[in-house]
């Protein structure tokens, strides 16, 4: 369905919703399904037959089936109304991978049977007992780096008879982040390049260090730096500290990376960050107008990848 952009915007604005929310009549739409339309024609044929044969039992059955189908619309509405959408979270993902969307639902008041949630092309179904809560994971496709607005989430149900579909389109204030697509680096290359880092081939600034003792663990240290021996004494975690040699601190520099294009440069840096994080190294990032001090751990990786993801588009 192609609508002019401004109409789409108006519709989307209506669907904007803050979490947590409960689905109510302002947000729920209901229409017959295709099966429902077929059934309506079928009922009409039955009604005509009943009129023609002036058969009262046929009248009664036709009206009974008609009433059942109309009431099934109310049942479908009730299955959706009052459903609580309590929280939503979109986890970061590399471009091209699926981002994980986590939504948390709660059945308020009544049990819910077979609700379906669709985001883009991802779809999943669930049921809830009275008062029960449940989180649902959906996988959202990514196509470009940068912020990932969630777009429209559609919660729908065809329960109980499949003749009506009640649905609620929501635009939730959930934004994810798509990291740049990391350029795959060959492991061997990576080792090899480290050696002539000073020559700036890949823009790797390497510093050798030696094991210098232990200090109290800081979250950004990463598990690979935990000194298990020191920590085993029971006085908390300790990290190994390097002066030079054993671990290196790397700073990936925007200007020193040799790449053919703007996006490729970003991808290469993202690949380096990912690889450095995998190796448990201490690394930093130097971008135009932004320097991220060396560190390690998931937080450091996220900081670096976020900075890369949010770089402006090439001019």
């Amino acid at each position, binding site marked *: 369905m192609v609508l002019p952009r401004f109409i789409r915007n108006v519709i989307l604005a209506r669907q904007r919703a803050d979490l*947590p929310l409960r689905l109510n009549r302002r947000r729920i739409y209901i229409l017959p399904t295709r*099966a429902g339309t*077929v*059934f309506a024609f*079928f009922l009409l044929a*039955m009604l*005509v037959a009943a*009129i*023609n*044969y*002036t*058969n*009262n*039992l*046929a*009248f*009664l*059955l*036709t*009206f*009974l*089936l*008609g*009433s*059942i189908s*109309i*009431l*099934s619309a*109310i*049942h479908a*509405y*009730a299955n959706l*109304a*009052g459903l609580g959408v*309590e*929280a939503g979270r979109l986890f970061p993902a590399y471009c091209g991978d699926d981002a994980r969307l986590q939504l948390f639902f709660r059945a*308020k*008041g*009544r049990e819910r*049977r*077979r609700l379906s949630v669709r985001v883009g092309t991802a779809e999943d*179904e*669930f*049921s809830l007992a*009275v*008062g029960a809560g449940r989180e649902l994971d959906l996988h959202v496709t990514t196509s470009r780096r940068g912020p990932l607005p969630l777009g429209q989430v559609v919660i729908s149900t*065809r*329960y*109980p*008879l*499949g003749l009506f579909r009640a649905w609620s389109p929501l635009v939730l204030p959930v934004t994810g982040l798509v990291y740049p697509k990391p350029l795959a680096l060959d492991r061997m290359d990576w080792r090899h390049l480290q050696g002539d880092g000073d020559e700036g081939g890949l823009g790797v600034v390497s510093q050798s260090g030696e094991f210098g003792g232990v200090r109290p663990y800081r979250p950004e240290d990463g598990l690979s730096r935990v000194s298990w021996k020191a920590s085993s004494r029971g006085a908390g975690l300790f990290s190994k500290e390097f002066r030079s040699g054993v671990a290196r601190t790397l700073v990936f520099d925007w200007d020193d990376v040799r790449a053919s294009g703007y996006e490729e440069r970003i991808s290469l840096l993202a690949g380096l960050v990912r690889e450095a994080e995998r190796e448990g190294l201490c690394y930093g990032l130097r971008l135009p107008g932004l320097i991220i001090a060396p560190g390690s751990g998931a937080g450091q990786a996220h900081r670096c990848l976020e900075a890369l993801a949010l770089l402006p588009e090439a001019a």
Partner: protein
Amino acid sequence: MIHDKRRFSVTLLALALAFAPHLPRVPVFVGVFVFLAWGYALGMQYRGWPVPPRWLRAILALTCLALVLFTYGRSFGRDAGVALLSLMLGLKAVESKSVRDMLALLFLAYFVVVTNVLYSQTLVMSAYMFFSVMAVTAALVHLHSGEPRLLSDLRRGGLLLVQALPLALILFVFFPRLQGALWGVHDERDEGVSGFSETLEPGSVASLSLSREVAFRVDFPGVIPDRDSLYWRGLVLDSFDGLTWFRALPFDLVPSRADALPAQSVSYTLTMEPHNREWVFALDLPVLAPRGTVLRSDQTLASLRMVRSRVRYDLAAVQAPGLSPVPGPAWTALPEGGNPKARALAAEWKDAGLSPGEMVAAALKLFREGGFVYSLRPGAADKDIVDQFLFATRLGYCEHYSSAMAFLLRAAGVPVRVVVGYQGGEENPMGGYLIVRQSDAHAWVEVWMDGRWLRVDPTSVVAPQRLVTGVESFVPQGQGGVLPEGAQALRKVGRFFQLGWDAANNSWNQWVLGFSHDRQRSLWERLGIDPTTGAGAGKLAGVLAAGLCIILGGVFGVMLRSRHGERDQVAFLYGRFCRELAKLGLARGLSEGPRDYARRIGMQRPELAQAVRSVVDAYIALRYDGAGDPAVFKRLVDEFMGRKM
């Protein structure tokens, strides 16, 4: 998917329930095919049997169609349609894979349920149809309900049905009915309708004497008249060919005098079972022709159309016949020759100069004192049947007596005619109405005396109890003769249930099946609407709309009602408590547990700390320790809500 297998089985089960009543009606090959196809379809689901290729399915479909056409020939009607529909049920099941296919199957199942009305509309069948609608609805729910929880789906199906009933009833009562069909209806309901024929010959009434089938039911607004005065006229036979009485003379139509109902008339309502003839039975003598019927000059009623479905008539009767003109010679005509002894007897009467009244008395005296016996099995006669009966066997049923008496009187030159119809009826104390059965079929004569046709029932002098207790006292009861007392009591109980059942059926027929265009009109008139001008219809529409809104609103209310259990009452109170605090700017964080929440409030608003602490402690005790009293918790929350700000 395991769920799909289960869904498919449930779909087939619903289908089988819907199809079951048709099983004895379709040809054997159709039934066998349907069950084989369903068996194979189950094998596809559970054993992974291959889906038959498209060409095979096409061949099967064409073969089925050909077989049906071969079986039914060109008369493609109800039976052929149902057979074809049944074959479709089998074929569609074999190609069903997706949920959408199952949906189509269940729609077909609804359709199959509805086709039952073409065969049977009895109370039992209707109840079964409602049951199958519920089953199919539950199967539809099962198809759309996520995890298979059959019991809960069944309950939902039942709930839908129960909620839909009042709505359906309103539509049923107020949906405008037309008079007659939209287009021609070919009706196949000819077979198996019992009732007497258009002629009277020895054995034609006796053959009905064992049939307990209902001919019609009668509702008297007042007291039911005495049983021996209940003569239901069917048709008047005017000619005799030596064996059979039949109708040959032309008759006039009497203009209906609905406006001038005589003072001494008895009004009643008669509901006739279909008999595929045009005659309408009416209490002796009808004076009114209700809509759709005509009154003939021989004082019988006839419907303008064949009575193919149950019809309800409002009728009135008068006791005394009116004056009628002198009948022509045709009313004394007899065939040439035959029955010489009877003719001789009649000539004797005539020569003795007896008046018609005296002749009637003489004939009745002959029957009463001549050793005549009332019998259901008088034996067959081939020629001179009147002579044989009067002077040899002296064994006969009502048709013998009427036929003989009419013959004697005609031979003596008195105009006489034979009337066939029903006599008596059984009162149903539970419904306060009269049931007239085929076994009440009767024949009597009418003699033209003193300018009127007067009823004479020769059977009444031979077997007077026939008029009081009905024909049953003459029906032989097996070899045992008198039944033992226990069996008598059992018979009484059986009788009681039979009558109760008939009352239930009668109400069903009257109020549901018999609700017609005319009765809808009279309902509208009673509601203050003029059906022709439509005045007052607006008011009714308003009331109807309000009624529908109330029903729909009620269902809305029921469906949107929250189900708070004991446990949820606590959650509900805690929610109220949190909302109250939120109003004070102390909203609970999503991830904030009760203890942390209380601690934070204690720091931010020390003056609330004490009250909040006690509520939260009670909450924690109830929720996490399984201790504490919900009533105490409720009191604490109420106190907190009602505190002095």
